[in-house]
Protein backbone atom coordinates (compact mmCIF):
# COMPACT_ATOMS: atom_id res chain seq x y z
CA UNK A 1 0.00 0.00 0.00
CA UNK A 2 2.74 2.45 1.01
CA UNK A 3 4.57 1.66 -2.22
CA UNK A 4 1.56 2.39 -4.39
CA UNK A 5 1.04 5.74 -2.68
CA UNK A 6 4.73 6.58 -2.92
CA UNK A 7 4.81 5.73 -6.62
CA UNK A 8 1.71 7.86 -7.25
CA UNK A 9 3.28 10.88 -5.58
CA UNK A 10 6.60 10.50 -7.44
CA UNK A 11 4.78 9.99 -10.75
CA UNK A 12 2.64 13.08 -10.16
CA UNK A 13 5.71 15.21 -9.67
CA UNK A 14 7.36 13.78 -12.80
CA UNK A 15 4.20 14.20 -14.91
CA UNK A 16 3.57 17.70 -13.59
CA UNK A 17 7.07 18.77 -14.70
CA UNK A 18 6.68 17.06 -18.10
CA UNK A 19 3.24 18.51 -18.72
CA UNK A 20 3.87 21.87 -17.10
CA UNK A 21 1.23 21.40 -14.46
CA UNK A 22 3.28 22.12 -11.35
CA UNK A 23 0.94 24.87 -10.07
CA UNK A 24 -2.06 22.52 -10.24
CA UNK A 25 -0.21 19.75 -8.42
CA UNK A 26 1.03 22.13 -5.78
CA UNK A 27 -2.51 23.39 -5.26
CA UNK A 28 -3.84 19.86 -5.03
CA UNK A 29 -1.21 18.93 -2.46
CA UNK A 30 -2.21 21.83 -0.27
CA UNK A 31 -5.97 21.32 -0.47
CA UNK A 32 -6.00 17.52 -0.25
CA UNK A 33 -5.75 17.51 3.54
CA UNK A 34 -8.73 19.81 3.85
CA UNK A 35 -10.66 17.70 1.34
CA UNK A 36 -9.87 14.52 3.26
CA UNK A 37 -11.02 15.98 6.56
CA UNK A 38 -14.21 17.32 4.94
CA UNK A 39 -14.88 13.85 3.59
CA UNK A 40 -14.26 12.21 6.95
CA UNK A 41 -16.55 14.76 8.55
CA UNK A 42 -19.35 13.70 6.23
CA UNK A 43 -18.44 10.08 6.81
CA UNK A 44 -18.81 10.66 10.56
CA UNK A 45 -22.50 11.38 10.13
CA UNK A 46 -23.33 8.28 8.12
CA UNK A 47 -21.01 5.93 9.99
CA UNK A 48 -22.31 7.06 13.39
CA UNK A 49 -25.92 6.80 12.24
CA UNK A 50 -25.63 3.30 10.82
CA UNK A 51 -23.40 2.07 13.62
CA UNK A 52 -26.12 3.17 16.05
CA UNK A 53 -28.90 1.51 14.07
CA UNK A 54 -26.88 -1.68 13.67
CA UNK A 55 -26.12 -1.77 17.39
CA UNK A 56 -29.88 -1.90 17.95
CA UNK A 57 -30.13 -4.72 15.41
CA UNK A 58 -27.44 -6.58 17.32
CA UNK A 59 -28.96 -6.12 20.77
CA UNK A 60 -32.42 -7.13 19.58
CA UNK A 61 -31.21 -10.41 18.12
CA UNK A 62 -32.09 -9.42 14.55
CA UNK A 63 -28.48 -9.99 13.56
CA UNK A 64 -28.65 -13.64 14.59
CA UNK A 65 -31.51 -14.18 12.16
CA UNK A 66 -29.63 -12.47 9.31
CA UNK A 67 -26.51 -14.42 10.16
CA UNK A 68 -28.39 -17.74 9.89
CA UNK A 69 -29.80 -16.71 6.51
CA UNK A 70 -26.32 -15.86 5.20
CA UNK A 71 -24.48 -18.77 6.80
CA UNK A 72 -24.25 -20.81 3.56
CA UNK A 73 -22.29 -17.95 1.97
CA UNK A 74 -20.26 -16.86 4.99
CA UNK A 75 -19.45 -20.47 5.89
CA UNK A 76 -17.90 -20.88 2.48
CA UNK A 77 -15.96 -17.59 2.34
CA UNK A 78 -14.97 -17.36 6.00
CA UNK A 79 -14.46 -20.96 6.98
CA UNK A 80 -14.06 -21.54 10.71
CA UNK A 81 -14.70 -17.91 11.64
CA UNK A 82 -17.94 -18.78 13.48
CA UNK A 83 -15.82 -20.53 16.11
CA UNK A 84 -12.94 -18.03 16.18
CA UNK A 85 -14.93 -14.81 16.36
CA UNK A 86 -18.73 -14.72 16.31
CA UNK A 87 -18.55 -10.91 16.63
CA UNK A 88 -16.58 -10.62 13.38
CA UNK A 89 -18.98 -12.96 11.62
CA UNK A 90 -22.02 -10.97 12.66
CA UNK A 91 -20.43 -7.71 11.45
CA UNK A 92 -19.54 -9.41 8.16
CA UNK A 93 -23.10 -10.70 7.75
CA UNK A 94 -24.45 -7.17 8.22
CA UNK A 95 -21.83 -5.81 5.82
CA UNK A 96 -22.92 -8.28 3.13
CA UNK A 97 -26.61 -7.54 3.78
CA UNK A 98 -26.07 -3.79 3.50
CA UNK A 99 -24.12 -4.28 0.26
CA UNK A 100 -26.87 -6.45 -1.21
CA UNK A 101 -29.49 -3.85 -0.28
CA UNK A 102 -27.40 -1.14 -1.94
CA UNK A 103 -26.86 0.67 1.37
CA UNK A 104 -23.20 1.50 0.84
CA UNK A 105 -23.29 3.97 3.73
CA UNK A 106 -24.32 1.18 6.10
CA UNK A 107 -21.91 -1.36 4.63
CA UNK A 108 -18.80 0.71 5.41
CA UNK A 109 -19.22 0.96 9.22
CA UNK A 110 -20.02 -2.75 9.45
CA UNK A 111 -17.01 -3.62 7.32
CA UNK A 112 -14.73 -1.48 9.51
CA UNK A 113 -16.20 -3.10 12.62
CA UNK A 114 -15.44 -6.52 11.17
CA UNK A 115 -11.88 -5.49 10.26
CA UNK A 116 -11.20 -4.34 13.83
CA UNK A 117 -12.41 -7.68 15.16
CA UNK A 118 -10.39 -9.64 12.56
CA UNK A 119 -7.34 -7.60 13.54
CA UNK A 120 -7.88 -8.60 17.17
CA UNK A 121 -7.93 -12.33 16.37
CA UNK A 122 -4.95 -11.79 14.05
CA UNK A 123 -2.97 -11.11 17.24
CA UNK A 124 -1.57 -7.72 16.20
CA UNK A 125 0.30 -9.26 13.29
CA UNK A 126 1.40 -6.88 10.54
CA UNK A 127 0.39 -9.41 7.88
CA UNK A 128 -3.20 -9.44 6.62
CA UNK A 129 -5.09 -12.63 7.42
CA UNK A 130 -6.97 -14.61 4.80
CA UNK A 131 -10.23 -13.46 6.37
CA UNK A 132 -9.27 -9.80 5.99
CA UNK A 133 -8.27 -10.25 2.37
CA UNK A 134 -11.55 -12.01 1.60
CA UNK A 135 -13.58 -9.27 3.29
CA UNK A 136 -11.74 -6.43 1.55
CA UNK A 137 -12.01 -8.24 -1.81
CA UNK A 138 -15.74 -8.63 -1.23
CA UNK A 139 -16.12 -4.91 -0.58
CA UNK A 140 -13.89 -3.65 -3.39
CA UNK A 141 -16.20 -5.44 -5.84
CA UNK A 142 -19.50 -5.25 -4.04
CA UNK A 143 -22.64 -6.52 -5.72
CA UNK A 144 -25.26 -3.86 -6.46
CA UNK A 145 -28.91 -4.61 -7.07
CA UNK A 146 -29.95 -1.05 -7.85
CA UNK A 147 -27.24 1.43 -8.95
CA UNK A 148 -29.37 4.46 -8.08
CA UNK A 149 -26.79 7.17 -8.82
CA UNK A 150 -26.06 5.82 -12.29
CA UNK A 151 -29.77 5.50 -13.04
CA UNK A 152 -30.39 9.08 -11.91
CA UNK A 153 -27.63 10.45 -14.14
CA UNK A 154 -28.90 8.45 -17.12
CA UNK A 155 -32.41 9.77 -16.57
CA UNK A 156 -31.18 13.36 -16.33
CA UNK A 157 -29.29 12.90 -19.59
CA UNK A 158 -32.56 11.96 -21.28
CA UNK A 159 -32.24 8.18 -21.41
CA UNK A 160 -35.37 6.44 -22.69
CA UNK A 161 -35.09 3.71 -20.08
CA UNK A 162 -32.45 4.50 -17.46
CA UNK A 163 -32.79 1.07 -15.86
CA UNK A 164 -32.35 -1.08 -18.97
CA UNK A 165 -28.72 -1.58 -17.94
CA UNK A 166 -29.77 -3.60 -14.87
CA UNK A 167 -29.35 -7.15 -16.25
CA UNK A 168 -25.90 -6.24 -17.58
CA UNK A 169 -24.97 -4.67 -14.22
CA UNK A 170 -26.09 -7.78 -12.36
CA UNK A 171 -24.12 -10.13 -14.59
CA UNK A 172 -21.02 -7.95 -14.54
CA UNK A 173 -20.98 -7.23 -10.82
CA UNK A 174 -21.58 -10.86 -9.86
CA UNK A 175 -18.71 -11.90 -12.12
CA UNK A 176 -16.40 -9.24 -10.70
CA UNK A 177 -17.23 -10.19 -7.09
CA UNK A 178 -16.62 -13.83 -7.95
CA UNK A 179 -13.28 -12.98 -9.54
CA UNK A 180 -12.14 -10.82 -6.61
CA UNK A 181 -13.18 -13.23 -3.86
CA UNK A 182 -12.09 -16.26 -5.89
CA UNK A 183 -8.62 -14.78 -6.37
CA UNK A 184 -8.46 -13.90 -2.66
CA UNK A 185 -9.37 -17.42 -1.52
CA UNK A 186 -7.20 -19.13 -4.10
CA UNK A 187 -4.08 -17.10 -3.30
CA UNK A 188 -4.73 -17.51 0.44
CA UNK A 189 -4.75 -21.27 -0.09
CA UNK A 190 -1.57 -21.20 -2.18
CA UNK A 191 0.35 -18.97 0.25
CA UNK A 192 -0.65 -20.92 3.36
CA UNK A 193 2.21 -22.27 5.47
CA UNK A 194 1.39 -21.61 9.13
CA UNK A 195 0.36 -18.01 8.74
CA UNK A 196 -1.60 -16.33 11.48
CA UNK A 197 -5.31 -15.69 11.42
CA UNK A 198 -6.00 -18.40 8.90
CA UNK A 199 -8.69 -21.04 9.20
CA UNK A 200 -7.91 -24.67 10.07
Amino acid sequence: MSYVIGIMIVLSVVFSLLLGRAPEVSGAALTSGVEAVKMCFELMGTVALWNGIMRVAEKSGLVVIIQKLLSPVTGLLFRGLDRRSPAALSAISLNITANLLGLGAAATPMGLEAMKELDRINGGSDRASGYMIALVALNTASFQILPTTVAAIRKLAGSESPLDILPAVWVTSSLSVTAAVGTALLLSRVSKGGESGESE
Partner: protein
Amino acid sequence: VSPSDLFIPLVITGILCFGLIKGVNLLETFTEGAMDGLKTVVRITPTMIFIMLAIGMFKASGGLDLLTVLFEPVVSLAGIPSQLVPLMLMRPISGSGALAVFKDIIATYGPDTHVGRVASVMQGSTETTFYTMAMYYSVTQVKKTRHTLAAAAAGDLTGFIFSALAVSLLMR
Protein backbone atom coordinates in the same frame (compact mmCIF):
# COMPACT_ATOMS: atom_id res chain seq x y z
CA VAL B 1 -42.93 8.51 -4.45
CA SER B 2 -40.68 5.82 -5.87
CA PRO B 3 -40.13 2.58 -3.94
CA SER B 4 -36.41 3.28 -3.57
CA ASP B 5 -37.21 6.47 -1.64
CA LEU B 6 -39.17 4.46 0.91
CA PHE B 7 -36.51 1.83 1.29
CA ILE B 8 -34.10 3.49 3.73
CA PRO B 9 -36.81 4.79 6.09
CA LEU B 10 -38.38 1.31 6.08
CA VAL B 11 -35.09 -0.40 6.94
CA ILE B 12 -34.45 2.06 9.77
CA THR B 13 -37.96 1.89 11.27
CA GLY B 14 -38.01 -1.89 10.83
CA ILE B 15 -34.82 -2.33 12.85
CA LEU B 16 -35.89 0.15 15.52
CA CYS B 17 -39.39 -1.39 15.90
CA PHE B 18 -37.89 -4.89 16.18
CA GLY B 19 -35.62 -3.53 18.94
CA LEU B 20 -38.57 -1.92 20.70
CA ILE B 21 -40.53 -5.19 20.65
CA LYS B 22 -37.52 -7.05 22.06
CA GLY B 23 -37.25 -4.51 24.90
CA VAL B 24 -33.98 -2.90 23.83
CA ASN B 25 -33.22 0.54 25.33
CA LEU B 26 -33.13 2.34 21.97
CA LEU B 27 -31.50 5.64 22.95
CA GLU B 28 -28.75 4.08 25.04
CA THR B 29 -27.95 1.36 22.50
CA PHE B 30 -28.02 3.73 19.53
CA THR B 31 -25.75 6.33 21.12
CA GLU B 32 -23.31 3.62 22.21
CA GLY B 33 -23.04 2.39 18.62
CA ALA B 34 -22.89 5.91 17.19
CA MET B 35 -20.05 6.84 19.56
CA ASP B 36 -18.04 3.81 18.40
CA GLY B 37 -18.72 4.88 14.82
CA LEU B 38 -17.34 8.37 15.49
CA LYS B 39 -14.20 6.91 17.04
CA THR B 40 -13.69 4.70 14.00
CA VAL B 41 -13.84 7.66 11.61
CA VAL B 42 -11.39 9.68 13.72
CA ARG B 43 -9.06 6.69 13.58
CA ILE B 44 -9.13 6.46 9.78
CA THR B 45 -8.82 10.22 9.11
CA PRO B 46 -4.97 10.40 9.08
CA THR B 47 -4.79 7.57 6.53
CA MET B 48 -7.43 9.27 4.40
CA ILE B 49 -5.44 12.53 4.40
CA PHE B 50 -2.38 10.66 3.11
CA ILE B 51 -4.34 8.77 0.45
CA MET B 52 -6.13 11.89 -0.75
CA LEU B 53 -2.80 13.69 -0.98
CA ALA B 54 -1.54 11.07 -3.43
CA ILE B 55 -4.79 10.89 -5.38
CA GLY B 56 -5.21 14.67 -5.51
CA MET B 57 -1.66 15.24 -6.76
CA PHE B 58 -1.96 12.47 -9.32
CA LYS B 59 -5.25 13.77 -10.70
CA ALA B 60 -3.85 17.31 -10.97
CA SER B 61 -0.60 16.21 -12.62
CA GLY B 62 -2.31 15.16 -15.85
CA GLY B 63 -0.80 11.71 -15.42
CA LEU B 64 -4.16 10.18 -16.24
CA ASP B 65 -4.09 11.77 -19.71
CA LEU B 66 -0.70 10.22 -20.40
CA LEU B 67 -1.80 6.82 -19.12
CA THR B 68 -4.94 7.07 -21.25
CA VAL B 69 -2.87 7.30 -24.42
CA LEU B 70 -0.79 4.34 -23.24
CA PHE B 71 -3.72 2.11 -22.42
CA GLU B 72 -5.99 2.84 -25.38
CA PRO B 73 -4.62 0.13 -27.73
CA VAL B 74 -4.75 -2.57 -25.01
CA VAL B 75 -8.30 -1.66 -24.08
CA SER B 76 -9.55 -1.76 -27.67
CA LEU B 77 -8.12 -5.26 -27.97
CA ALA B 78 -10.30 -6.35 -25.03
CA GLY B 79 -13.38 -5.09 -26.89
CA ILE B 80 -13.91 -2.08 -24.66
CA PRO B 81 -14.57 1.31 -26.33
CA SER B 82 -11.34 3.29 -25.95
CA GLN B 83 -13.30 6.41 -24.91
CA LEU B 84 -13.79 4.67 -21.56
CA VAL B 85 -10.10 4.53 -20.60
CA PRO B 86 -10.30 7.67 -18.41
CA LEU B 87 -13.22 6.14 -16.51
CA MET B 88 -11.35 2.85 -16.01
CA LEU B 89 -8.28 4.68 -14.70
CA MET B 90 -10.27 6.93 -12.38
CA ARG B 91 -12.78 4.38 -11.08
CA PRO B 92 -10.46 2.53 -8.64
CA ILE B 93 -8.86 5.63 -7.12
CA SER B 94 -11.53 8.28 -6.75
CA GLY B 95 -15.30 7.98 -6.36
CA SER B 96 -16.02 11.66 -7.03
CA GLY B 97 -13.47 11.76 -9.85
CA ALA B 98 -15.02 8.73 -11.55
CA LEU B 99 -18.49 10.22 -11.20
CA ALA B 100 -17.33 13.40 -12.94
CA VAL B 101 -15.74 11.40 -15.77
CA PHE B 102 -18.87 9.26 -16.06
CA LYS B 103 -21.16 12.30 -16.29
CA ASP B 104 -18.87 13.74 -18.95
CA ILE B 105 -19.01 10.53 -21.03
CA ILE B 106 -22.81 10.40 -20.77
CA ALA B 107 -23.07 14.07 -21.78
CA THR B 108 -20.71 13.58 -24.75
CA TYR B 109 -21.95 10.28 -26.16
CA GLY B 110 -25.51 10.07 -24.80
CA PRO B 111 -26.91 7.56 -22.30
CA ASP B 112 -28.41 5.14 -24.84
CA THR B 113 -25.40 4.68 -27.12
CA HIS B 114 -23.05 1.70 -26.87
CA VAL B 115 -20.36 3.82 -25.19
CA GLY B 116 -22.90 5.36 -22.81
CA ARG B 117 -24.31 1.99 -21.84
CA VAL B 118 -20.95 0.34 -21.25
CA ALA B 119 -19.93 3.36 -19.14
CA SER B 120 -23.14 3.02 -17.10
CA VAL B 121 -22.60 -0.69 -16.48
CA MET B 122 -18.97 -0.06 -15.59
CA GLN B 123 -19.82 2.72 -13.16
CA GLY B 124 -22.67 0.69 -11.65
CA SER B 125 -20.85 -2.57 -11.14
CA THR B 126 -17.44 -1.52 -9.82
CA GLU B 127 -16.21 0.20 -6.68
CA THR B 128 -13.57 2.68 -5.60
CA THR B 129 -11.18 -0.20 -4.99
CA PHE B 130 -8.02 1.52 -3.86
CA TYR B 131 -9.79 3.85 -1.49
CA THR B 132 -11.89 1.05 0.04
CA MET B 133 -8.78 -1.03 0.58
CA ALA B 134 -6.94 1.81 2.30
CA MET B 135 -9.90 2.62 4.52
CA TYR B 136 -10.50 -0.98 5.60
CA TYR B 137 -6.87 -1.63 6.50
CA SER B 138 -6.51 1.69 8.31
CA VAL B 139 -8.42 0.35 11.33
CA THR B 140 -5.98 -2.59 11.65
CA GLN B 141 -2.30 -2.98 12.46
CA VAL B 142 -1.66 -4.65 9.11
CA LYS B 143 1.23 -3.32 7.03
CA LYS B 144 1.57 -6.19 4.57
CA THR B 145 -1.70 -6.52 2.71
CA ARG B 146 -0.36 -9.54 0.78
CA HIS B 147 -2.57 -10.50 -2.16
CA THR B 148 -5.38 -8.03 -1.40
CA LEU B 149 -4.41 -5.76 -4.29
CA ALA B 150 -4.22 -8.73 -6.68
CA ALA B 151 -7.70 -9.89 -5.67
CA ALA B 152 -9.15 -6.38 -5.98
CA ALA B 153 -7.48 -5.86 -9.36
CA ALA B 154 -8.86 -9.19 -10.60
CA GLY B 155 -12.32 -7.99 -9.64
CA ASP B 156 -11.90 -4.62 -11.37
CA LEU B 157 -10.49 -6.09 -14.58
CA THR B 158 -13.29 -8.63 -14.75
CA GLY B 159 -15.80 -5.83 -14.19
CA PHE B 160 -14.30 -3.69 -16.97
CA ILE B 161 -14.08 -6.47 -19.55
CA PHE B 162 -17.50 -7.90 -18.85
CA SER B 163 -19.32 -4.57 -18.84
CA ALA B 164 -18.51 -4.26 -22.53
CA LEU B 165 -19.31 -7.92 -23.21
CA ALA B 166 -22.56 -7.85 -21.21
CA VAL B 167 -23.83 -4.77 -23.03
CA SER B 168 -23.03 -6.33 -26.43
CA LEU B 169 -24.74 -9.60 -25.54
CA LEU B 170 -27.67 -8.48 -23.39
CA MET B 171 -28.69 -5.19 -25.01
CA ARG B 172 -29.39 -6.11 -28.62
